[in-house]
């Protein structure tokens, strides 16, 4: 009797980092950072200011090359082809990348050819639809953050890289973001987030940067 094909184990790591190290300026910000993320996994980066959380996120996005170590995607070196790797990530950096002269909706249209429904859904996901026609320069800092986070809804990338996503957000917005993260992970999405503020990602791994392992 033929055995049924063995299904791929669900917890196979999709993203694996091996002994990554990065320098900023002349300083080694972190070294020997290793982790692996299965589909649906989440990794929270914690550590004091300047410990290299943002540097690690930029490295994972392919914006900065590591000086040592390797980043593997399905077992292959992810950073060999930066444009291809870029399609796998949705990066929300600590800057909001918002053009103040454009309306809230036009800021989202700037990043691609979305349909009206897609943009509306993205605005609803961060509860910004009442401000859709407002120039972005009139938004408060928390609303700007939410507009930056609205880009997550427009991305089909399997990995979210979030740099202090909750800065300036009110409690309701943080809960909404947590719910979106949970839904995303349930569909197999992976999240790497750097945060000082509590962000409830169930069963997330923690990676502590800085402190004792800097030189």
């Amino acid at each position, binding site marked *: 009797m033929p055995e049924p094909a063995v299904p791929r184990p669900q917890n196979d790591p999709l993203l694996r980092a091996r002994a990554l190290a990065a320098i900023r300026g002349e300083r080694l910000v972190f070294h020997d950072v290793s982790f692996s993320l299965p589909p649906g996994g989440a990794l929270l980066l914690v550590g004091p200011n300047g410990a290299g959380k943002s540097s690690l996120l*930029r490295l994972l*996005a*392919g*914006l*900065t*090359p590591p000086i040592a170590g390797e980043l593997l995607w399905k077992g292959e070196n992810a950073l060999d082809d*930066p*444009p*291809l790797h*870029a*399609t796998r*990530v949705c*990066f929300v*950096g*600590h*800057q*909001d*990348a*918002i*053009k103040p*002269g*454009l309306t809230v909706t*036009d800021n989202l*249209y*700037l*990043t*691609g*050819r979305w349909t009206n429904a897609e943009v509306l859904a993205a605005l609803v996901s961060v509860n910004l639809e009442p401000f859709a026609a407002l120039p972005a320069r009139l938004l408060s800092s928390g609303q700007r953050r939410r507009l930056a986070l609205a*880009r997550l809804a427009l991305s089909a990338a399997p990995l979210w890289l979030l740099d202090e996503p909750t800065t300036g957000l009110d409690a309701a917005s943080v809960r909404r973001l947590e719910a979106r993260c949970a839904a995303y992970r349930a569909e197999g999405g992976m999240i790497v987030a750097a945060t000082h503020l509590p962000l409830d990602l169930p069963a997330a791994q923690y990676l502590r940067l800085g402190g004792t392992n800097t030189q």
Partner: protein
Amino acid sequence: MKIFIGLIRRELVLALRHAGDSVAALMFFVIAASLFPFALGPSAQALTRIAPGVVWVVALLAALLPLNRLFGADYEDGSLDLLMLSGIPASAVAFAKIIGHWLTTGVPLLIAAGPVAIMLRLNGDAVPQLLATLLPGTLLFSLVGGMSGAITLGARGGTILLPLIALPLMIPAVIFGAAGAVSSHPVSEFSMLFALLAVFFPLAPTAAGAALRAALA
């Protein structure tokens, strides 16, 4: 390719909404060129002789004006990170922005160059030849200027550094462009202009892409 065209569209939308940069370059072009008759006197003979050269030099300086914002604005607000992650190579991002600069600065300069040349007493029948040299000329301004803008991105004093890098590289273009505008048989001058284009067309986006990656690292 779709992403690339999307980026050019993005540049046009932004230029339209933040029209100040392009309009400022155009106004600078017209005002700076109109200073020459004031300084040299309204003698038609003198003006006619210098008109093509003045138009060329002033157009070059005007094209440099918006360059430090070309990458600088996106660099400061974090948009450049997202552009680099849009799924096309860094050199393609740079090339899209260079094309954006040409469409929003080079083309308006080309349109204004005719009236400005006539204001400087250039004969009407000499204007088409001047514009023919400025067409590859403005493309060179955007290519070399975009490359210089990317190289000086994030550097302290980049605003000063940018023209210091771009202007010397433009000297050949100015020599052959201004000469081609007045020559009665300008084949060699046009050949040189297109030779310069053939050099900078591949070189400038590649160098600019590498510079952008370095600036964000």
